[in-house]
């Protein structure tokens, strides 16, 4: 039986696959670490739009009541896409589309308080979801890449 934080991450991956429905080469996956090229010449070269989910932290159970404990699991979700057009920088409209996609397909669904990821596991009330970076400015300038990361906390009462 996998660690609970891994089960949580896998459940989030399954949820995102169902809500986003990526078409190859687009992909959503759980990773421990991922390496890929952002420029031609390094394989594997990033193709399509990719969501990567990885566990960040989890807390020891906190006493919620005399009989109920609360666990908290924190995941990172990273969304990346390489611009392959001819412009010197990704156009504003292209970036706008990716920012909107992450908000609508990842952020809002995962922060929905009605979401039940696994039995008794819901988005955290104390630590609501955050987008750490709407876009990584260094990767925008250097690699012409959309790169965003969000932090999502989930609570489980046992």
């Amino acid at each position, binding site marked *: 039986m996998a660690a609970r934080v891994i089960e949580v991450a896998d459940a989030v991956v399954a949820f995102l696959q169902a809500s986003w429905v990526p078409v190859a080469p687009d992909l959503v996956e759980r990773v421990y670490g991922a390496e890929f*090229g*952002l420029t031609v010449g390094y394989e594997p070269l990033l193709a399509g739009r990719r969501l990567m989910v990885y566990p960040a932290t989890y807390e020891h159970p906190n006493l919620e009541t005399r009989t109920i404990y609360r666990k908290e699991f924190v995941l990172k979700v990273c969304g990346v896409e390489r611009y392959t057009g001819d412009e010197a920088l990704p156009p504003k409209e292209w970036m706008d589309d990716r920012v909107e996609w992450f908000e609508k397909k990842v952020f809002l669904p995962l922060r929905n308080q009605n979401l039940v990821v696994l039995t008794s596991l819901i988005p955290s009330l104390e630590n609501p979801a955050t987008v750490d970076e709407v876009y990584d400015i260094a990767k925008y300038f250097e690699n012409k890449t959309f790169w965003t990361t969000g932090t999502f906390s989930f609570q489980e009462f046992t």
Partner: protein
Amino acid sequence: MNRSQLGADAHARFAKKADGVSVVYGRGLVTKSLTAWIGTNNFSRDQSTAIVPISSDRDYLLYTMDLGELGVPQRGDRITETINGVVCVYEATPTADGNPCWVYQGHSQAMTRIYTKRVS
């Protein structure tokens, strides 16, 4: 041009002949065939999180005067070079530390170093 600059100029021309490669420098529809000198050529990686992007970096040294009417390099300028029979296109890109995509090489400014990443 003083003697020091003339010396640097001669050195630059010698270096170009000694190690230069033929490239096509392009900006939009304007292209120029010229000789470049390869500087560093490596992969850079950003291992600040679990997700590690890697990019291929290549510096070109050009004789500044060869750029002619194009003036100084600009982001998005493209250098096409055939390497081992493969046509490779590199694009002028600012550096990871935030510097522009080019810098004069040496006090005489006879050479220009252009930082690029491969795009095709």
